[in-house]
């Protein structure tokens, strides 16, 4: 567990270094994601401790957004001024992006052939 967590942090650290060194607009953790992904591709069979550690981090992924979200208290004045454009555009554009992307992908994704996910195979019409 500790080794797995250390590996995740090492990927993030390398990501931060690469982002800083080459002055990239891509943040360190995203480069870390790419590094770990290629690492997994090379190893083919990732160790269970690593996948367990990753799954545990992701189970309550939404908890990790709470501290930044509470930052709403520092933005009350700005929100008072621009509340209508912010609220309206957030809701409309998010739902628009979801529906249009889901429509596009329903059309374009290859029909599922494996039996491991019968629900989607059946419904992908």
């Amino acid at each position, binding site marked *: 567990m500790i080794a797995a967590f250390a590996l995740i942090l090492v990927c993030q650290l390398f990501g931060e270094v690469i982002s800083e060194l080459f002055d990239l607009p891509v943040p360190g953790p995203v480069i870390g994601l790419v590094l770990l992904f290629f*690492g997994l591709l090379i190893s083919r069979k990732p160790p269970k401790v690593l996948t367990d550690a990753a799954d545990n981090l992701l189970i309550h992924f939404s908890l990790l957004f709470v501290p930044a979200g*509470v930052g709403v208290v520092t933005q009350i004045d700005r929100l008072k001024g621009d509340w209508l454009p912010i609220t309206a555009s957030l809701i409309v554009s998010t*739902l628009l*992006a979801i529906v249009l992307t889901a429509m596009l992908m329903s059309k374009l*994704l290859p029909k599922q052939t494996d039996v491991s996910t019968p629900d989607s195979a059946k*419904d992908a019409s």
Partner: protein
Amino acid sequence: METDITQLWVYLSTKPLTGLTITLVAYSIGFWLYQKSNRNPMCNPVVIAIALIAFLLKMTDTPYATYFEGAQFVHFLLGPATVALAVPLFRQTETLKRAMPVIVFGVLFGSLVASASTVLLAWALGASPETLASLAPKSVTTPVAMGIAENIGGVPALTAVCVIATGIVGATLGPMVMNMARLKDWRARGFAMGVASHGIGTARAFQVNETAGAFSGLAMGLNTMATAITIPFLWHWIFG
């Protein structure tokens, strides 16, 4: 008695332990309510937690910076958790290989719709330039979105709020509108949630269906990269 309690709070509020504890307790209450409500998406644990903490800070007159001294330990985990997304992504390697061009196209499409429509609509409704720049990266995960906002002249703190609101809108209303549009493919549904409403949408997708969750994580991870590269580039190109 009154002053004793006040003094005790003054002492406690300076300890990082308090902010951290409040965050975990508030989220636990939110998650408990969410399960009590039969996993009703309107009872989003993140919304409940944020509302509870914001109310508490207001009542006790505690500055956000003081709260964040404790909450930063939770906030810090966003980085490692973003890296950890490589694991669910890896589980979809077969799909990725089979449908790479389609997936890349889908991510670019969703990313463009999400940011262009919000900027256009907010501009039409008279939002200030800083607000527009803060809204543009709203569909990617918080730390990345804040970085992008800073790059294009937005207010990172406002971006964090918009990102979380976007995730909540997607997680609560997204499945409903997809049902209305009769979209049934779990892969497409998860993908759309991940592109438009990042980690909060992905968390929701995982709770509904494993396949949807994996595709959501995939789309979210790729969109993070796509948006981090395209928005700063497009923004500087369009607005000079």
